[in-house]
């Protein structure tokens, strides 16, 4: 129930930012809109810890800048590979063990891996992540371990 | 400078279109199409600034949405041969 109210609040806040009309008519429309959206989500049974991850917000604010910096670094690296005259690719599939406890944690870890070019998550079975890497040597596991540790820390103790 | 960016976007879209036309497997084509969709979203945003009327951004958002759902739908159709299949990867594969 608490999560449903939070979801409603988040949606209404986004509505106000998008709309930026504060006449009563639009406030009524916004209220109705967010109520419909939350009702449909609640009837589908998709409002839970996974879809409204309130417990991640504070630690997530520290994780995102780090992720952006990683994305920047790996982008430069992959651009170097593509632009070099003879393509120095040595693709291979490697496996990582994800130490997150919930599906949401694995979702964040898998998407972080995919977002950094040079590595793409190709499959998740329980806590085993299958990752396709464009250059085998560069995925020695150190950076992925770092990311794994950070996402597990992001997930926190409560999970 | 917006014109330069828009030109770069168009060049990149042409290259991706080559891949969509050549692509040996269906997945190459889906990947290229998804990529062209992303570039179209950015192009809509840039064109709004180029015209001095940046109120197309709702359209960019809607396009990004349709692009994402379209990609997922095409992949599901290729993989399962059935858009409405429920859970059960292996069971559905065995049935189809």
């Amino acid at each position, binding site marked *: 129930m608490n999560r449903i109210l939070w979801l409603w609040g988040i949606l209404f806040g986004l509505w106000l930012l998008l709309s930026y009309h504060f006449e009563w008519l639009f406030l009524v*429309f916004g209220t109705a809109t967010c109520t419909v959206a939350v009702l449909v989500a609640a009837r589908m049974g998709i409002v839970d810890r*996974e879809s409204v991850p309130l417990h991640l917000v504070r630690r997530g604010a520290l994780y995102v800048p780090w992720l952006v910096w990683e994305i920047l670094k790996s982008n430069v690296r992959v651009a170097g590979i593509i632009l070099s005259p003879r393509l120095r690719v040595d693709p291979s599939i490697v496996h990582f063990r994800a130490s997150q406890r919930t599906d949401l944690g694995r*979702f964040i870890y898998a998407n972080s891996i995919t977002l950094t070019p040079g590595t793409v998550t190709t499959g*998740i079975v329980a806590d085993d992540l299958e990752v396709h890497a464009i250059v085998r040597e560069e995925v020695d596991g150190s950076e992925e371990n770092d990311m794994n540790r950070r996402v597990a820390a992001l997930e926190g103790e409560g999970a | 400078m917006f014109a330069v960016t828009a030109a770069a976007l168009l060049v990149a879209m042409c290259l991706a279109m080559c891949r969509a036309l050549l692509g040996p497997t269906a997945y190459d084509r889906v990947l290229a199409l998804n990529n062209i969709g992303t570039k179209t979203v950015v192009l809509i945003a840039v064109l709004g600034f180029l015209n001095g009327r940046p109120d197309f951004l*709702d359209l960019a958002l809607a396009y990004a949405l*349709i692009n994402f759902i379209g990609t997922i739908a095409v992949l599901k159709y290729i993989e399962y041969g*059935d858009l*409405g299949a429920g*859970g059960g990867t292996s069971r559905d594969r065995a049935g189809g």
Partner: protein
Amino acid sequence: MREEVVVRVGAKILVPFIIMFALYVHFHGDYSPGGGFQAGVILAAAFVLLALVYGLEAVQRVLPPWFTRMCAALGVLIFAGVGVVTMLLGHNYLGYNALAPDPTHPEHGQHYGILLVELGVLVTVFGVMVTVFYLFAGRGRENS
């Protein structure tokens, strides 16, 4: 695709926002590009995404096919009904000025009238889109 962790969690997070965005596009049709048609398509897309991830049966439990067919007809009824109401109030068919509560500001009537007519378009487009998707996705299901 329910077992696929990434797609399932992503869809769960996105769907409420898509529905909110669809109705936002509808209600701000006169301030930014958009309106009933686009809103109907985006709203239908939310349910298509749910059906792709959770399967047709799960979505049809929430949004049964008879309801989407009813929506398709109801939208036309709303559209035509607005026109008939304005005629009953002594104006032309779809003469929106009749809807203004305050006769000194006829533009309010325009606003309300267009919103109501667009609501009809939204409901019809939503109903037809979801019905078409149900028919396509369920094709071959009955035979097997």
